[in-house]
C-alpha cells in the first residue's frame, strides 16, 4: 500500500510542479510526464502483486475526525480497478500533455494538467479507501476534480450546462451515499468497512433501503438508466482525454461501489440480483439504442458507456443470483465477467475517446455526418479506432469478447443448474440483442468516419495527429490486443476477484481457472487453425496465378455507379442517419429520435428522452412551485412582524397542549 501512497504523492507533486512552473512550457511538460509515468508505474506494482495472489498490508491512520480510524488497503477487488486507473490514467495524462502542446493559453493548460493529476490520485484513493469517511472524501474530491476538468473551456454555454448537470447529478448521488453509510453505520462499532461487514443491516427492510439507496447513489455515478441523463452532456462538454478518463474510470467508481457493497454484505438478497439483471438489460439495450441515434461522436461513445455498464450489471446480477441460489461456479464466473469487462471497458472506451479526440483535433468537428474517408488521411488513428470498435462490439480476437464470453458463460451456467436459477439464462437473449445493436452502431461509426469519401472540406484537409497523441492510443490498443489474445494473463486475476465476491472456496477457483483457461486457449488455437487453413489455400492459389499471365490488380478505377456518366460524389454515400434509420424505426417509441425529412435531404436528430422528458421538466416544476410560494412573501414589514406573532401564538398553543399533558 505504501507504493500506492508513493504513487499518489508523486502525482500530486506532478500537479504542483506543472501549476508552479506553468510559464516554462518545456520544463513543466517533461516534469509532468516524468512524474505521472513514475507515479502510475509505482502505483501499479502493488496492484499487479495483489492480482497475482500476494497480500499487501493495510495502512491505518488514527481517527482525527468523528467516524473511526482511516484505513487504506488493497484487496483483489480494488487491485483490478487500481490497475485500470493507473494504466488509463497515465495514458490519458500523456495524451493530455501532447493535446495541449500548442494551446495558446498556457495558464489554462497547466491548470487542466494539474486537475487531471489530482483526479487520477483521487480515483486511486477511492478504490483503496477501506473506511467510510476517507471513501466519501476521496469520492467527492474525485467528483469535484472531475467537474473542474470538464469545464476547461467555460466560455462555451454547452460546456457550462454539461458541467453543471454532471455536478448536480454526482452531488445528489453523494447525498444518497451519505444516507447509505449513515443507516448502515448506525449500530456498527465505527465506520470502517471491516466493522460494516461485521454488522450488516439487521432487518430485511433496512437492507432493502440500504441497497436501493446504494443503487441510486452509485447508479448516478455509473450511469445506469434512468440516472444516466448527465453522462452524454458531460462527455460532449469535456475535452476528449477527460471524457476518456470519465468514461474509462470515473463512471467505473459507481460499479466499484456496487461491488464493494456486495463484498461487504455476507449474503446479498436474491431480489437484488434480479434487479441488477433487469437494470443491466434496460441500461444495455437503451444505451446502445440511443447511441445508434446520435451523430455527435462523443455523445455516441458516452451512450455506449451506458450500454457497457449494462453488460457489467448483467454480470453482477448473475453473480448475486449465483450466491443467492447457491451456485458458486455461476457466481464466480458472473463476478469475474463483470470485473474483467470493467477492466476491458476502461481500456477500449478510453482508446475510442482518445481516437475521437484525435479526429476532433484534426478536423475540428464532432459531428460524424461531416466526416468520411479519414482512414486514408489518418491511417494510425483509423487503425487504432478500428481495434477499439472491434473490442467494444465484443468480436472474437479482442478482449471485449473475452469478458462478454465470461458473462454469457455465467448466464448459461445458471441455465444448466436446477431451481429458479434456470430463468437467468433468458438474460443471455438481452445480451445478444445488445451485441447485435452494438455491431450496427460501430459499423456505422467506423464506416461513416473512416471509410468512403470525405463529406466535408474539414474531413478532406484532415492530417494525422502528432506522435505524442497517437502513441498513448497505440499503447492502449496494444493492451486490448494482448489481453484479447493472451487470456491466460487476464482470466486468473478476474476469477480471483470473482471468487472473492462470491465467497467461493479458493479450491473451486483454481479448478475454475483451469476450467476457464483451457477452453479459451483451445478457442485461440481454433482461430489460428482457421487462419492457417485459409492462408494455405490462398498462398497455393496465388502461386498458381503468379505462373499464369494474369495482369496485376488495377486501383485507379472509380467506384461502380451503374455506368452513370458523372463519378460518384460524397453525397451518394449512406449517412449516419440513413444507416441507422431502419433499426431505429423498429424501436421508435423509445429512441427519442425526431426525423427531419425534406424534398432533397433526410436527417434525424436524437435527444436523450430521460433528460428532456423526465429530469428537466421535474426541475422546472420544482422551480415554479418555489416561485409561487415566494410570491406569497412580499417585502412589507407588517407581514414580517405578523410571522413573529404567528410563531408566538403557535408556541403558546403548544405550551398549553404540552403543559396540560405533562
Amino acid at each position, binding site marked *: 500500500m505504501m507504493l500506492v501512497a508513493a504513487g499518489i504523492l508523486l502525482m500530486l507533486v506532478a500537479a504542483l510542479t506543472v501549476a508552479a512552473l506553468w510559464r516554462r512550457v518545456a520544463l513543466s511538460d517533461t516534469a509532468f510526464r516524468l512524474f505521472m509515468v513514475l507515479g502510475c508505474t509505482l502505483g501499479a506494482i502493488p496492484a499487479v502483486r495483489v492480482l497475482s495472489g500476494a497480500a499487501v498490508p493495510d495502512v491505518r491512520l488514527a481517527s*482525527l*475526525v*468523528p*467516524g473511526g480510524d482511516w484505513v487504506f488497503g488493497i484487496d483483489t477487488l480494488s487491485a483490478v480497478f487500481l490497475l485500470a486507473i493507473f494504466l488509463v490514467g497515465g495514458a490519458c495524462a500523456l495524451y493530455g500533455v501532447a493535446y495541449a502542446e500548442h494551446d495558446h493559453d498556457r495558464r489554462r493548460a497547466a491548470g487542466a494538467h494539474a486537475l487531471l493529476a489530482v483526479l487520477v490520485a483521487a480515483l486511486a484513493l477511492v478504490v483503496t479507501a477501506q473506511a467510510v*469517511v476517507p471513501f*466519501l*472524501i476521496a*469520492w*467527492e*474530491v474525485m*467528483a*469535484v476534480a472531475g467537474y473542474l476538468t470538464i*469545464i476547461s473551456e*467555460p*466560455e462555451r454555454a454547452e460546456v*457550462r450546462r454539461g*458541467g*453543471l448537470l454532471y*455536478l*448536480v447529478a454526482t*452531488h*445528489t448521488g*453523494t*447525498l*444518497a451515499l*451519505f*444516507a447509505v453509510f*449513515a*443507516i448502515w*453505520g*448506525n449500530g456498527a462499532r465505527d465506520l470502517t468497512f471491516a466493522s460494516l461487514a461485521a454488522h450488516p443491516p439487521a432487518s430485511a427492510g433496512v437492507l432493502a*433501503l440500504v441497497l436501493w439507496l446504494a443503487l441510486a447513489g452509485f447508479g448516478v455515478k455509473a450511469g445506469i438508466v434512468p440516472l444516466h441523463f448527465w453522462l452524454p452532456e458531460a462527455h460532449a462538454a469535456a475535452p476528449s482525454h477527460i471524457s476518456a478518463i470519465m468514461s474509462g474510470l470515473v463512471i467505473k467508481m459507481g460499479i466499484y461501489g456496487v461491488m464493494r457493497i456486495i463484498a461487504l454484505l455476507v449474503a446479498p438478497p436474491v431480489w437484488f440480483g434480479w434487479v441488477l439483471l433487469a437494470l443491466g438489460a434496460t441500461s444495455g439495450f437503451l444505451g446502445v439504442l440511443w447511441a445508434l441515434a446520435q451523430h455527435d461522436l462523443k455523445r455516441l461513445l458516452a451512450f455506449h458507456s451506458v450500454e457497457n455498464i449494462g453488460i457489467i450489471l448483467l454480470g453482477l446480477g448473475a453473480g448475486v443470483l449465483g450466491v443467492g441460489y447457491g451456485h458458486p461456479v455461476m457466481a464466480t464466473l458472473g463476478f469475474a465477467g463483470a470485473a474483467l469487462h470493467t477492466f476491458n471497458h476502461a481500456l477500449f472506451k478510453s482508446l475510442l475517446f482518445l481516437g475521437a479526440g484525435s479526429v476532433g483535433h484534426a478536423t475540428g468537428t464532432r459531428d460524424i455526418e461531416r466526416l468520411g474517408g479519414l482512414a486514408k488521411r489518418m491511417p494510425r488513428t483509423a487503425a487504432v479506432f478500428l481495434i477499439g470498435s472491434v473490442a467494444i462490439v465484443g468480436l472474437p480476437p479482442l478482449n471485449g469478447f473475452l469478458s462478454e464470453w465470461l458473462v454469457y458463460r455465467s448466464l448459461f451456467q445458471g441455465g444448466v443448474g436446477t431451481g429458479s436459477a434456470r430463468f437467468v439464462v433468458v438474460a443471455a437473449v438481452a445480451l445478444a440483442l445488445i451485441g447485435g445493436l452494438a455491431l450496427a452502431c460501430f459499423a456505422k461509426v467506423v464506416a461513416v468516419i473512416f471509410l468512403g469519401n470525405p463529406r466535408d472540406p474539414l474531413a478532406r484537409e484532415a492530417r494525422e495527429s502528432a506522435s505524442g497523441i497517437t502513441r498513448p492510443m497505440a499503447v492502449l490498443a496494444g493492451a486490448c490486443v494482448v489481453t484479447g489474445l493472451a487470456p491466460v494473463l487476464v482470466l486468473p486475476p478476474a476469477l480471483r476477484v470473482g471468487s472473492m465476491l462470491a465467497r467461493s472456496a479458493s479450491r473451486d477457483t483454481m479448478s475454475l481457472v483451469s476450467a476457464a483457461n483451457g477452453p479459451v486457449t483451445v478457442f485461440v488455437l481454433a482461430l489460428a487453425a482457421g487462419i492457417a487453413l485459409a492462408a494455405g489455400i490462398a498462398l497455393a492459389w496465388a502461386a498458381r496465378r503468379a505462373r499464369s499471365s494474369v495482369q496485376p490488380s488495377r486501383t485507379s478505377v472509380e467506384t461502380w455507379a451503374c455506368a452513370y456518366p458523372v463519378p460518384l460524389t460524397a453525397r451518394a454515400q449512406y449517412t449516419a442517419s440513413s444507416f441507422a434509420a431502419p433499426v431505429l424505426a423498429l424501436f421508435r417509441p423509445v429512441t427519442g429520435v425526431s426525423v427531419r425529412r425534406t424534398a432533397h435531404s433526410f436527417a434525424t436528430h436524437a435527444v436523450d428522452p430521460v433528460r428532456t422528458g423526465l429530469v428537466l421538466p421535474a*426541475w422546472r416544476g*420544482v*422551480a415554479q412551485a*418555489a*416561485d409561487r*410560494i*415566494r410570491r406569497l*412573501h412580499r*417585502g412589507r*414589514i407588517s*407581514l*414580517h*412582524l405578523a*410571522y*413573529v406573532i*404567528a*410563531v*408566538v401564538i403557535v*408556541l*403558546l398553543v*403548544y*405550551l398549553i397542549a*404540552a*403543559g396540560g399533558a*405533562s
Partner: protein
Amino acid sequence: MRLLAICLLPALGAVFAFALSGRRFGAARVSTLVGIAAVHLVLVATLWLHPAPAAFGGWMGQDALGLIVLSLTSVLFFATALYAVGYLRRERPRGGRVFVGGLLGFLAATSLVALSQHLALLWVGLEATTFTVAPLIFHRHDRRSLEAVWKYLLISSVGIALALLGIFFLATAQSGAAGRPLLLPDLLAHARDLHPAWLRAAFLFLLAGFGTKMGLAPLHTWKPDTYGEAPSLVSGLMAGALTSCAFLGVARITQVTMAAGMAPFVQPVLLGFGLLSLAVAAIFIIGQSDVKRLLAYSSVEHMGLLVLGLGLGGIGAYGTVLHVLNNGLAKAWLFLVAGNVVLATGSSAAAANRGLMRTLPVSGALLVLGLFAITGSPPFGLFQSEFTILRAAVGAGHPWIAAAMLVFLAVIFVGMALLILEMALGDPTPRATRARESWWLLAGPVALATAVLMLGVYIPAPLQHALASAATALGGLAP
C-alpha cells in the same frame, strides 16, 4: 481578570475610535481596530491554554460552549479586521468613525454574550449587538439600506423583547428553587426543582426571542434584506459571529431544560424549527439572483441544521457544536469573497458578475471552493458536522427527518450551484478587465478557507475535547 479584559478592551477601543473624528485619524482608527482584534485573539488563545476562573461574582465564566463561540467570534473578527484595512482603503467611507466604533462595540457585545453565565447579562449583551450593528448596516446611507436597517431594528427588538419576557419567566420558575437567580451553574444544579410550567414557557419565549436573532424561519425575514444591503464584511460578521452568539442563548436554555429532563417537550419544537428553516431556505434559494441574499438564505439553512442537531440529541449535539464552528468560518469566508466581487463590480447581482474566474481569478476560485464547502461536500468541515447530524437523525429513529434533510440539501445545492457557477464561469462582461486583487482583501478568506478545510480532515485534540464536553453539556454524547 482576563475575562473582564476580553469584554472591556474592545468597548474602550470603540469609544476611543469614536472619539477620533475626522479623516486625518483614519489610519489611527484602523490600526486600533486591527491592534485590538489581535490582542483579543491572543487573550482568547490564552483561555485555551490555562482556563480563567469565574469573574464578576460568578456572572462571567468560561465553559466549553462559550469558549468555542468566543474563539470563533475572535477569529472571525481578526479576519474581518484584516479585510477592513483593504476595504476602508478602497471605500473611503464618510462615517469611518462610526464604522470602526461599531465594529469594536460589536466585538465587545459578542464577547460579553459568550462569557456570561448570567442569562440576563447574556440578554443585555445580545441587545447591545443589535444597536452596535444597526449603524453598520446603514453604512451606505441609501434608500435600500435604510429599509434594511428599519426592518432589522424592528424585528430584532421585538425578538429581544420576547427573550426578556422569557428571562422573567425563567426567574419566576426559579423563585421556588435554591441557588442564585438566573446563574447557569445554579440553574443546572437545581434544574429538577424549577417550576415546570414556567420553565416550559421560559424555554418557548427564549427560543422565539433568540431564534429571531439567529434567523430561524419564519423569524428570518430580516436576514436577506440585512445581509443583502450591509457591507459584506459586516454581513460576514453577523452571519458568522452574531448568529452563533444567538445560538449560544438557545443552547443555554436547552442545557437547563435538558438538565430538568424536559427532552420530550423540547425536542419536537427544535426539530420543527429546524425542518421549517431548511424548507424555507430551499424554496427561496432556487431562482435567487443576488449572491449576498443567496448566502443569507444559506445562513437560514445552516441555522436550521444547528437546531435540528440539537433537537435530535445523541451525537447530533456534537454535530451541532462542530457545525457552529464550521458554519461560522465558511459563512465569513464566502461573505468576504462576495465582498471582493462587489468591490470590483459594484453590484452583488449575478448578472453583473459573470466570468469571475477570468476577472478575479483568486476570488473566483475561492467562491467556487466556497460553494462546495457551504453545501457540505466532503473535504470541508461542514461535511463532518452534517454527516454527524445525519447519523444522529438515523440513530434517533427519525428516518423521515434524515430523508427530508437530504432532499432539502440536494435542492439547495442545485440552487446555489446554478447561481455561483454561472457567476464564476460565465463569459466575462466585455468591460471587466482582470482587476489586481489586493493582498489585504484575500488574506482573510484564504485563512478561513484553510481552517474549514483543516476541520474537514483533522480536529486538534483540545478542540476535540471542548466539543465533546460541550456536546455532553447539551444532553448529547461525542461520537
